[in-house]
């Protein structure tokens, strides 16, 4: 009798305990949690446009010569980094982190996670296109992030001693605990170009989503990198190949200047979309009046790029983002400027001017544009660079242009400001054209700080 009872008891207990525990505990704790192990999931990580993947630095806009703010506005800036960048102080961040450093590395982390996970997904006939596109995209996003970093946190490229200069802080793996390290400037550029070359073969030719990379985006980025490296033959070559694939320009005659935001997001000229952080500085910043005055009456950019605030000061509205955020991506007009400049520097002045004229034709009121012809190469270059400044205003490219042109120009540019009665100056060639690396990075990874 007793034995029976105990048998039944043991049976009942084992019924519950033996089976199904693992299955019971395998339930996902949160519905929206996803373990990214499929190609579609990896693509979704790269498609996090708004908060991660399509952002680029903006602090260089504060430090450049395109915008200014009044003393009162300067004093009411909350963020120390904005104030310090504006006056080119040696100490910039005062211990705080800045999105200009963090965002690119977050993109690099995402790209590394994707590249790492891709190793576990077999490429076969059915998934070939998506597999390639995901890999190519991850390589592109990573290179785009490093390109943005190299223009702020590494010195300007010098073909003669680039292997002696410290370049990028790189993080090749997704493992959080692996340390980041520095490589030479030459090695940095070589790495970026190699990654882009690989991406070029993997990505589609067509631009379907402006937030995703494509072959034209890779080619344009290669052209931008070679321009920085002063390899004008290559910059011409890749810029032309880009235009071969995608040459759409907006005709500014078709854009409504009475709109508060005249250019839509993902407009026809955009090759790869990216936007800058919304720094408080931009809210009140006004356009450099000298720059504004350089746009002539019939130049449509005068109305499309600028408007007047209540105090009658000129402020910017020519965002290519469809909202009041600065555009920092790649657009066709930049590629035209690269072709024009490279051709002139390569001795093909007339051809270079032709590209400039084709572009400017779309920026002037119909029937008023007079093409620039028959200049000597020096004047042609000067015109192209002036037009580049006007055409690519507030795209985040000006800082890099000052850096690279100061190196090769015979008329280097010093930057000057007067704030609260004190004069600040950033001389051409100053080491303060390179932003410092955040202190925590130096401490944790044992890096060498940029000189300021």
């Amino acid at each position, binding site marked *: 009798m007793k034995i029976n009872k105990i048998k039944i008891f043991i049976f009942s207990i084992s019924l519950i305990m033996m089976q199904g525990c693992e299955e019971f505990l395998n339930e996902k704790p949160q519905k929206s*949690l996803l373990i990214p192990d499929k190609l579609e999931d990896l693509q979704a990580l790269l498609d996090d446009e708004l908060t991660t993947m399509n952002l680029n630095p903006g602090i260089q806009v504060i430090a450049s010569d395109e915008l200014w703010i009044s003393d009162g506005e300067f004093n009411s800036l909350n963020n120390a980094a904005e104030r310090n960048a504006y006056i080119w102080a040696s100490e910039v961040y005062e211990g705080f982190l800045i999105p200009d450093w963090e965002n690119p*590395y977050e993109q690099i982390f995402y790209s590394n*996670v994707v590249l790492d996970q891709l190793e576990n997904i077999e490429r076969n006939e059915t998934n070939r296109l998506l597999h390639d596109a995901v890999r190519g995209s991850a390589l592109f996003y990573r290179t785009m992030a490093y390109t943005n970093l190299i223009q702020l946190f590494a010195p300007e490229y010098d073909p003669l001693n680039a292997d002696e200069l410290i370049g990028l802080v790189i993080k090749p793996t997704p493992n959080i605990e692996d340390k980041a390290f520095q490589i030479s400037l030459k090695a940095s550029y070589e790495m970026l170009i190699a990654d882009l070359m690989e991406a070029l073969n993997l990505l589609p030719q067509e631009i379907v989503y402006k937030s995703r990379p494509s072959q034209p985006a890779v080619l344009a980025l290669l052209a931008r990198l070679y321009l920085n490296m002063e390899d004008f033959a290559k910059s011409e070559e890749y810029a032309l190949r880009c235009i071969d694939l995608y040459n759409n320009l907006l005709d500014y005659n078709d854009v409504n200047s009475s709109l508060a935001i005249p250019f839509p997001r993902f407009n026809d000229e955009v090759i790869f979309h990216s936007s800058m952080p919304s720094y408080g500085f931009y809210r009140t910043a006004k356009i450099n009046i000298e720059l504004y005055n350089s746009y002539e009456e019939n130049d449509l950019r005068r109305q499309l790029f600028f408007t007047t605030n209540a105090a009658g000061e000129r402020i910017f509205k020519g965002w290519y983002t469809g909202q009041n955020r600065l555009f920092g991506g790649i657009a066709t007009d930049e590629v035209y400027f690269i072709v024009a400049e490279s051709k002139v520097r390569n001795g093909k002045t007339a051809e270079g001017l032709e590209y400039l004229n084709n572009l400017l034709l779309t920026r002037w009121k119909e029937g008023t544009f007079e093409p620039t012809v028959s200049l000597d190469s020096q004047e042609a270059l000067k015109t192209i660079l002036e037009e580049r400044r006007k055409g690519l205003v507030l795209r985040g490219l000006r800082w890099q242009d000052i850096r690279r042109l100061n190196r090769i120009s015979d008329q280097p540019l010093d930057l000057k400001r007067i704030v609260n009665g004190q004069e600040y100056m950033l001389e051409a060639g100053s080491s303060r054209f390179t932003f410092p690396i955040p202190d925590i990075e130096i401490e944790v990874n044992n890096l060498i700080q940029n000189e300021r």
Partner: protein
Amino acid sequence: MNMKIKLYMMLLVAIFLLPLHAYCQNLQAKLVGSVYENTENQPLIGASVWIVEAEIGAITDDKGGFELNLAHGRYNVEVTYLGFEKASFDIQVPISEPLLVYLEGDGFGMDEVTILSTGYQQLPKERATGSFVHLDETLITRSVGPNILDRLADVTSGLVFNQSGSGSDPISIRGRSTLFANANPLVVIDGFPYDGPLENINPNNVESITVLKDAAAASIWGARAGNGVIVISMKKGSADQPMKVSINNNVIFRESPDFYYRPRMSVSDYIDTEQRLFDNGFFRSREISQANYALSPAVELMILNRDGLLTESGLSEGLERLKSHDIRDDYKYFYRSPIHQQHSANVSGGGAGMRYNLSASYDNNLNQLIGNSDDRFTLGGNYNFSMLNDKLTIGVGFYLTQGANVEDAVDPTRIRLSALDALYPYAKLVGEDGLPVSLPIDYRTSFISGLEGTGLLDWTYSPLGERGLINSRAEQSDKRFILDAGYSLLPGLKFDVKYQYWDNREERTVHHSQDSYFSRDLINRFSRVLDNGSINRPIPVGGVYDFRHSLASSHTFRSQLNYNKSWGQDHQVVALGGFEAKDYKLKTLQTRQYGYNQELATVQPVDYINTFPQFQNPSTVGRIPYIDNQTGITDRFVSYFFNASYFYKDRYIVTASARKDMSNLYGVESNQKGVPLWSSGLGWIISEESFFNLDNLPYLKLRTSYGFNGNTDRTLTALTTATFFSSNFFTGLPYANITNPPNPNLRWEKSKMVNYGIDFSTKDGRIEGSIEYYQRNGYDLVGFAPVAPSSGMRNFKGNTASSEGSGVDVEIKTVNLNRRVVWTTNWLFNYYEDKIVNYGDEHTVRTMLQFGASSVYPLEGYGMFPVFSYQWAGLNPDTGDPMGYLDGEVSQDYAAINRETVFGDLIFHGTARPNVFGAIRNNLNWLNFSLSFNISYRLGYYYRRESIRYGNNFGLGGHGDYAYRWLSPGDELVTNVPSLPSATNNLRDDLYNFSSALIERGDHIRLQDIRLSYLFEKKSFPRLPFQRAEVYSYVNNIGILWKASDDPLDPDFRTMKPLRSIAFGLRVDF
């Protein structure tokens, strides 16, 4: 077959199979019975029943019952229980009725039986080796209030209410055991962890509370016990007790908030500062902004004056007029003294083999904001019966709570200017006659008045007129059903199954009526006036209706085997073991509807996809707010547990306990690595030894325990996870965000505790109590590892940290006077100190100064909440600039002080949470009057006083210390408040605000509460229609008796003083 269905099946099998055994008749005769305490008819748990001739015995179970198999014959029975006279009598077996044994107290002061509950078993305090605190019904009902946990304050040894910090851990038991994981104690109700909000538990239905403090007490709860466990037992009936009806009613009046308590910059200084800022062009960007930001009336006057539209004298007259009003004087139109009412009734009783309890209560609360109120109705009952000769016991219980919350109020303290700043302090919220007036809060008056005739909706805001225009209603229902079946397999061996279903539903609707500012503003912002004068409205005219629904539910199943056995008269074993599974689900749904028409209950569609230019700022575009979403959470636990006690000669106790938990939180792999959490304990009742013959110390027990508890951080998982979003606004593509980087080594946090305790009682119980010393070590604590942003993550969490702590808990009761006046005192003394011994991440000096005392920023070698400061060198006598130290020299180089100060240069004051705390509770009884007052103390801690921070706006609207700032040489002798800076200098503000000048000692003693009551008893007033009635009054938050600092504010209440309350109540037992 999924696990849940399996659980139900098992339950059915258990219920259907067990009665079959009833047919298996036993050849021997069975002796069943119960042991009770003589006076209160309370069952005695763990009493020893010894059959002398047969040399077998039993230990009574948690209902006082026992069961033995005996051959027919005559036996002598001895029943013993510590603190009671031994009972010895003869019986003849077989016996027809259950045997009822009543024991008499032995008069040494130990005749109060304290029964502790761990949630898995009930045990008498004398048999425990762990650290427990028991609160009986008298203590629970001593204070008055709607919340059950508040009743633990200042009466529970080792438990402290944290006044400083983020509010995520309102209660700590023996300090904080974790850095970032859940820091709240586990709350168990009637044997099951409670998942719902504690507001749903009516204190009037609670019979007792047991707090489990050390590993031996709590490790049966394993991975959820790391922060201690609070076990709540609801009221139950007693067998063989006539029906008892009792009612309890009370009403609490609380004072209304005092908005002048926290010093703010005066209105006059505010307007002067606005003038100074205006002259510097501070408001210019806002004035010329296209967003039409609202400006304060003073700034508007200054603009008129600047533009030549207002004369100098007109300006100063206007400003003087504004200076004459303080917004806080208008708050009385929005706030009131809250009133809380509680009514409850309870019926309990029992007959042969059954007992029951039924309770109902109603609470109503008029909130301090006029227009807000809530009420709560609870109904609970349980019924227990036994059948088949007491072999099978079945219990059912249910608890229902229905709560409703109404929010129609406008909170004037939350009105903001252009959503950017606090409202200017001279705002007139109410007209002279107490009628509503409107004021600009988002847009400039000129902008709004310029819209007349456009056909846009009225765009003005009137705080008083808004009341009732936004109706928020929440209804909450909470249900618990408990089924409990026990079957005696053999004498001493009992199989129990328990099942609980819990569900909690909440439905909140917020109707922003068409007339509310919220709706009008939203509709207008999206409106566009077309060239023909008509208005295009992407958001249709009508109300905005928000709806939020949440449904949480859990099934918990437990099967447990209990074993009680005696060998000879000296050896006893009480053991239990079992298995438990839990499935918890939470679903929420949120949605919003536009164009709501309340009368017709119609809504209208809107375009969520396209962007629309914003009327008030045409340079920006916006999307119509889309707040619909759904979430789903599933928590699953499977646990095995075991607990055993061995008693030798009623004076030596050995206990052991173990538990293994597995969950779906960390992934299967991590679970497999999990080690079982365990504990063990030893107890020795020295006073029972023959060599111990101190007549004045009739009870002395030593005990010690050692073991581990666990804790979980549910924000982490071992796998790389991402959160998925259905579509990006611009591209329409689905996208995902990485939320957790891979961390395959993740595991439970572990907390080791060693406890040493002495329990004692002197003759007649004149002095009794316990003294405990404990050490606590935290291992595998989840902490942030140092990570550079180049890793791509802003932070990284892992099992990286460890901590150590130790403390003393003393709880003593003295009977000071025992004549006509009975005067007793309860003394509580607690000491606790902790230290982080291993933490990889380093925080900057500035981070520790700013956040170290309030949030968890672990720093190796220091306690959990260290208070640091810059050494203060006073104010510069010439300029009033704050001065600190740099390399030991007085310095005003704020940038260098900020950059170069290291921790060694800072002053370390101590901890922000009290090291020493406790209470002294005096109780006086005279005739039928009782008076009890509780004096609490908190010592050995520091806090940082708030002061003025000039920021980028000369401290506009900041702290009231502005009035004491340095103005001219000589002021530095009487003030530490720096002079007004000429330009923004945050580092100068930092030096002063983080300096030692603002650090104060928090030590204080306060008279927490007084309770006065009068008891009517039938024996003194025979004509009363009831047995007894108690009339009581309770006053709470009376005031501070002493504090170390001169700071006029309460050290624990920095922004609002603790509001006094007085309650009146009546309790009647029929």
